């Protein structure tokens, strides 16, 4: 009786969120798609017009494009490996009985709250600077030549910074999952004489599998669009050595004003993200069914 009214009211309550997100998703994406088939240069509008797929061809034939895809993948995969393996080890360590566990947790989680430009600049200047950085001090202490991180190993440097930002996230989530493990089960396994390793492989790891999946999926979403860390450290260089796909699109759009090519790159980024999203949605969706 009242349900009809309730239902329409519910629809009415949902409308603002749904409409806002619909507009936010459809309008810019449609514009990007449209621009990706256009020649459009705000600085030189003479040749503007429909150009078919040539933006995609141009973007694809640009040697920076393949490099940027490669860099994007290297960044995502390296950081995932470091943070997931490091996160599991750290979570296991912090889960042990110890003095000052609360403070250890706070110290470990802290980097996650540091805004990306600060994280990148602190690492660039205070830690990795070839002259004044802490790494250079350590190298000199051992009589070694300090490494020019951003000149010679730009991707490694960025991977270290981004991994530092995300390791806390992985650790916190895996630790939360670990702590929800049934203590009785653990004790029973211990009583049965299961060693640390067999307990880890047969009990702990399966218990954490969903948390690990979630960590991988959520980090992938964010890692695919790393931007500020590159902007303030290497600016994509030297050359294109540390340019990822988002950074390349930004360069094409706002520095070179090649809007068509940038849009083509943007659409490629969307496709890449969608492949990831497909798996992410399935994993999160399963949780809703329980």
């Amino acid at each position, binding site marked *: 009786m009242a349900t009809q009214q309730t239902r329409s009211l519910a629809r009415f309550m949902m409308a603002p*969120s749904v409409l806002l997100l619909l507009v936010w998703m459809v309008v810019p994406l449609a514009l990007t798609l449209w621009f990706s088939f256009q020649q459009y240069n705000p600085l030189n509008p003479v040749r503007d017009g429909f150009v078919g797929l040539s933006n995609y061809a141009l973007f694809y034939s640009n040697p920076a494009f393949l490099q940027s895809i490669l860099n994007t993948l290297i960044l995502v995969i390296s950081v995932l490996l470091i943070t997931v393996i490091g996160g599991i080890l750290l979570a296991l360590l912090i889960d042990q009985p110890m003095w000052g566990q609360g403070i250890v947790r706070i110290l470990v989680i802290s980097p996650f709250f540091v805004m990306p430009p600060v994280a990148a*600049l602190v690492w660039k200047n205070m830690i990795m600077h070839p002259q004044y950085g802490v790494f250079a001090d350590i190298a000199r202490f051992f009589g070694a030549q300090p490494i020019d991180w951003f000149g010679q190993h730009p991707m490694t440097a960025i991977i270290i910074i981004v991994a530092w930002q995300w390791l806390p996230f992985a650790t916190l989530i895996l630790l939360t999952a670990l702590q929800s493990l049934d203590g009785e089960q653990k004790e029973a396994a211990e009583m049965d004489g299961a060693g640390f390793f067999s307990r880890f492989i047969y009990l702990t790891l399966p218990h954490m599998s969903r948390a690990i999946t*979630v960590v991988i999926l959520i980090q992938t979403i964010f890692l695919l669009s790393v931007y500020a860390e590159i902007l303030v450290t290497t600016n994509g260089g030297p050359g294109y050595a540390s340019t990822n796909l988002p950074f390349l699109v930004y360069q094409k759009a706002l520095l070179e004003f090649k809007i068509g090519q940038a849009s083509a790159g943007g659409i490629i980024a969307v496709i890449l993200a969608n492949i990831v999203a497909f798996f992410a949605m399935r994993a999160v969706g399963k949780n809703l069914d329980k």
Partner: protein
Amino acid sequence: MARSVTTQHKTIATVAAWIVALLIFFPILYTIITSFKSEQEAIQGFNLIPSGTFESYAEVQAQSGYFKFFLNSVLLSVGSTILALLVAIPAAWSMAFSPTKRTKDILMWMLSTKMMPAVAVLFPIYLIFRNLGLLDSRIGLMVMLMLINLPIVVWMLYTYFREIPGEILEAARMDGASLWNEIVYVLTPMAVPGIASTMLLNIILAWNEAFWTIRLTTTDAAPLTAFISSFSSPQGLFWAKLSAASTLAIAPILIMGWFSQKQLVRGLTFGAVK
């Protein structure tokens, strides 16, 4: 039997965990220490004991008007969070208490918007903002940040609201309460903790958002993310100043973050890990 090794085990675990934790925290710690050094001290090699000068803090404010950027960060993160809550609370509410067959699809679809790479829509958004005169405006950026975080806000609220027992709702309905009265008088008080947690996490996320806040602002609306990024092209020696600016930029959110660890897990995993 296993308990006999406890003290030794505990000591080893404590030492190992503290060493790792301090190493991870070190860049932040060193930044805070350096912020109390003079520029001369800051580049004289590794040194954990600063002279304790506040001159870098004074200079950051004097040279760049630090406080304006700080204020923008506060306005943008709090403002966008309040906007998001206003839009999301009714939606999450109706999804949690009057779910339909499509509720799950709508939730998943909302989440999917979060997966669109920002850079893919950079130019259209830039164009729209320019044509509406919203570039470098606080209102424009506030709406932007609201849209970015709206899916997370709806999701988080939804997972909290779902835990409120439905019987209370039934009872109120029996007593003849309208849906509006139900929301205002019966359920809102029970939902306050969940709303507060959502708010906290969303402020942190908005404070640290470093793509749109950098690209869509120049001076007037620029928050701390944009201000700090301007330090990337060095003019002379500025280690201590950079440290002071960085410390000020991360301190409030670091402290908020420490209090929101649990909510962080829940919010960022969309309720999949609690």
